[in-house]
């Protein structure tokens, strides 16, 4: 076979599951059916070759196996009837695919959208949204997801079971939200994908700073989103942000795994192709002139990517972008990141003043706040206060590479005594 089956699975699983959920009206049934179809593919494709439309083949086979199963198992008959009735309630048009086993069921792009919005339903907690998205759209299995988030497998499995049950018990609809609801619902989807990306970019626990799989998966989902929703500039902004951040990956860690700050990175190692693609997307967003938080963050990343050296960074532009970001997202984290940029532009004392203006009650348990404060205090010459701030940051850090970096920064303060 030209393409390994595992790769076909990862590529097609999300799309097939999405269509099967619509056809069968049940998430578990759809998941089981897709898994069965892939098992059959694993037997047949090596012999007969990969079919020209693998996704359609999987979906059709899965649908047929599911119907066979429903008709065989008497306990499931009620669910079959209920599913059919559910379909009738949800969609006034009759569903020919459900009964006509000769009908070829092809993947429908809209189904993936429906599934994304279902996985990121606002009634679910963020960690459940992430787990469901990775499972149903990403095609990752429970052990893979659990390992990626350093959560025990049974815990992760329960999280997914509970999330699916909640959606089913509450009769969550399988639809793309209406125009009125779309902005907030879309933001939940984008935020989930970004959460997956940042989890890959900086794992919150354990030894490795960078989980390649999750970052790649998030970018893949981001690409799917921009294909499915080409008129949503925030989706484009998210993809641009992830690409521009990903471009810096090769320069981000030392061989021993310790962190290298943006200012100290060897920019020759940055991925020029990803930067070019990110820049093109940012320019497309600017032409649209419908700014939003992900687009603005992407623009900030683009300004960094533009600078050949840290010294030539256009900090004035970055501060202006943070001002714009704060207008649409007036929260403490944005204010914190703005203060960092202000310090670069106007010096550490002004940066510290900007930090002081933030309501620190919100940031007291936020490691980057203390790390930033420590850095600015050190640069302003207040070494004792800086040491105390580094202590707080180290105590809050859950990532070993990060901890080592902060400890080194703290140790460097002592050298100047």
């Amino acid at each position, binding site marked *: 076979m030209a393409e390994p089956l595992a790769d076909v699975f990862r590529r097609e699983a999300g799309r097939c599951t999405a269509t099967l959920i619509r056809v069968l009206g049940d998430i578990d049934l759809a998941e089981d059916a897709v898994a069965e179809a892939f098992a059959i593919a694993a037997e047949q494709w090596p012999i007969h070759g990969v079919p020209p439309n693998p996704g359609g083949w999987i979906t059709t086979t899965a649908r047929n196996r599911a119907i066979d199963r429903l008709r065989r198992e008497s306990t499931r008959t009620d669910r079959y009837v209920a599913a059919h009735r559910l379909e009738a*309630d*949800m969609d006034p048009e009759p569903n020919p695919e459900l009964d006509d086993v000769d009908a070829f069921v092809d993947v429908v792009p809209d189904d993936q959208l429906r599934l994304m919005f279902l996985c990121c*339903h*606002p*009634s679910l907690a963020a960690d459940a949204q992430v787990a469901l998205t990775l499972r149903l759209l990403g095609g990752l299995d429970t052990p893979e997801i659990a390992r990626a988030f350093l959560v025990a497998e049974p815990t992760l499995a329960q999280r997914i079971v509970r999330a699916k049950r909640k*959606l089913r*018990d*509450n*009769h*969550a*609809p399988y*639809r793309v*939200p209406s125009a009125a*609801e779309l902005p907030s619902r879309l933001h939940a989807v984008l935020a989930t994908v970004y959460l997956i990306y940042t989890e890959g970019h900086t794992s919150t626990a354990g030894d490795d700073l960078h989980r390649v799989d999750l970052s790649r998966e998030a970018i893949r989902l981001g690409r799917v989103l921009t294909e499915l929703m080409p008129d949503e500039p925030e989706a484009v902004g998210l993809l641009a942000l992830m690409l521009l951040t990903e471009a810096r990956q090769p320069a981000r860690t030392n061989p021993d795994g310790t962190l290298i700050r943006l200012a100290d990175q060897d920019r020759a190692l940055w991925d020029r192709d990803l930067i070019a693609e990110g820049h093109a997307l940012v320019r497309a967003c600017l032409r649209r002139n419908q700014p939003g938080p992900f687009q603005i963050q992407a623009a900030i990343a683009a300004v960094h990517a533009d600078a050949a050296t840290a010294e030539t960074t256009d900090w004035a532009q970055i501060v202006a972008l943070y001002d714009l970001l704060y207008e649409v997202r007036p929260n403490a984290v944005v204010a914190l990141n703005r203060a960092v940029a202000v310090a670069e532009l106007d010096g550490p004392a002004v940066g510290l003043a900007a930090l002081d203006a933030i309501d620190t009650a919100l940031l007291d348990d936020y490691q980057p706040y203390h790390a930033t404060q420590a850095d600015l205090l050190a640069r302003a010459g207040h070494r004792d206060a800086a040491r105390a701030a580094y202590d707080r940051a180290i105590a809050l850090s859950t990532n070993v590479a990060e901890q080592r970096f902060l400890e080194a920064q703290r140790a460097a303060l002592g050298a100047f005594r």
Partner: protein
Amino acid sequence: MPQYLISVWHDDDYSDLDFSDPDTQRMATQVGAFNETLQQAGAWVFGCGLRSASSATVVRADDGDVTMTDGPYAETKEQMGGFWIIEAADLDAALDWAGKAAAACEGPVEVRPAEGG
């Protein structure tokens, strides 16, 4: 069509409504208007405010013995102040109603799906 319970919650026991209080009057008007929209949309099944939790009695039947205790079942501070049973096509529709309910009562509401449906 599925049914949902939308319940109103207070952080501690509340006193019975005092209709001379302007805040109470405002909320009563808001809730009245909300109830009307529910009824007009065909979503209303039942709804009402409840007297304060201190007016409650807990009844238990063990082996044919019926016993009673004064006060609410929940020993926590939080108490239910009222509820609606609504009919809605799906969760999104129910949550939309719940948003309006929360605005009318100026407080948090809980949405729970009924069994079956």
